């Protein structure tokens, strides 16, 4: 049991924390910003996987080309072909293969429905065709190589999003690596994804847990090497 002094000290520390301008600024961010930041983080890990596999990964703006400044990512899901902003993707080569890493792009599933994929890897040839025609990328054939659902959880993890992602990937074909990625661990979700053919879970992927990053990067790297 805590003494009244110990409890008062805790209350003082909580007040001191929440009086810090940096804490207030972070607490006032909306969850959409946190989600987008987490997706960009996962994209950066995918780029790292390409480099560790011996390939190249160059940030590219749809309008400006290689190494844009600033780097602009989508604040909401949208079209891969949109040139309304200088949206960035990562242009990659690995052995003889060329492909791109995108965030928040809509793909057309095998049913014809459009689906938002948080982080995706698409063949370069197909992405070029999408930009030329102003169409949508297809989540079939050899076009969509990697599909990742990313979630920065700030409350208890329910399985709703996991269930939705299972439905999404069932409308895609030919995807070589599909995974559900979240910042927090969850036994519930781990169990849900343990069934055969479900996406691989990476629960607790965070820069504060270096092993988790290495495990994720290694899996993406191996899957790309197998394909290339």
């Amino acid at each position, binding site marked *: 049991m805590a003494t009244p002094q110990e409890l008062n000290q805790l209350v003082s520390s909580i007040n001191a*924390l929440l009086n810090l301008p940096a804490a207030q600024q972070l607490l006032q961010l909306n969850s959409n910003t946190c989600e987008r930041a987490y997706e*960009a983080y996962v994209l950066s890990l995918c*780029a790292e996987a390409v480099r560790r596999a011996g390939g190249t990964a160059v940030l590219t703006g749809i309008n400006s080309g290689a190494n844009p400044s600033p780097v602009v*990512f989508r604040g909401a899901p949208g079209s891969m072909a*949109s040139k309304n902003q200088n949206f960035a993707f990562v242009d990659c080569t690995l052995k003889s293969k060329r492909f791109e890493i995108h965030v928040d792009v809509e793909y057309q599933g095998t049913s014809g429905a459009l689906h938002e994929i948080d982080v995706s890897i698409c063949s370069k040839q197909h992405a070029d065709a999408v930009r030329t025609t102003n169409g949508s990328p297809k989540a079939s054939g050899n076009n969509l190589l990697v599909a990742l659902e990313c979630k920065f959880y700030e*409350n208890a993890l329910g399985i709703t999003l996991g269930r939705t992602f299972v439905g999404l990937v069932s409308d895609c074909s030919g995807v070589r690596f599909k995974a559900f990625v979240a910042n927090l661990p969850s036994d519930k979700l781990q169990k849900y994804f343990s069934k055969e053919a479900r996406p691989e879970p990476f629960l607790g992927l965070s820069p*504060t847990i270096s092993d988790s990053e290495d495990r994720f990067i290694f899996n993406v790297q191996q899957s790309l090497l197998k394909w290339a």
Partner: protein
Amino acid sequence: MTLTESDARQLLEVLRGRLSEIGAREILDGIEESRRLGVEETLSGQDAKELKQVGAMRRRPLSAVEELSIVLSRLEERLVVLPRLASSTKEKLKTDTIEWRVDTEFVSEDRIPEVSIARLLPEGNHAVGELIAEIMKRAGISSAGKTE
């Protein structure tokens, strides 16, 4: 220090009040959502045997100590993990300037305004990390969100 249910309730009241003053509406909503989900647990072996016809999982409400643990862990995600992942992204992508913008044909900028990664890295965020680590240690809560 071991917190009783009454201690934890007192601290939760302080935290909720301060978060509300700051305008951390979405954090408070997240806490409510966690309360709503409660804790899922498996019935003990004997109970499950007796109740063969039904599922062995059940949901119960959070205790105040469990709720405090969740609240502090979520604050840690927002105050420590978020800046760390912003730094890591900048480092791995080898760029200092990252922005999120919307396709204005579909989404109004009023609804999702342009945000720079600098917002996720406010000056003094290291002091924030140290302070929350100290609070969690004193309250006997580990970073994984479990009481020690």
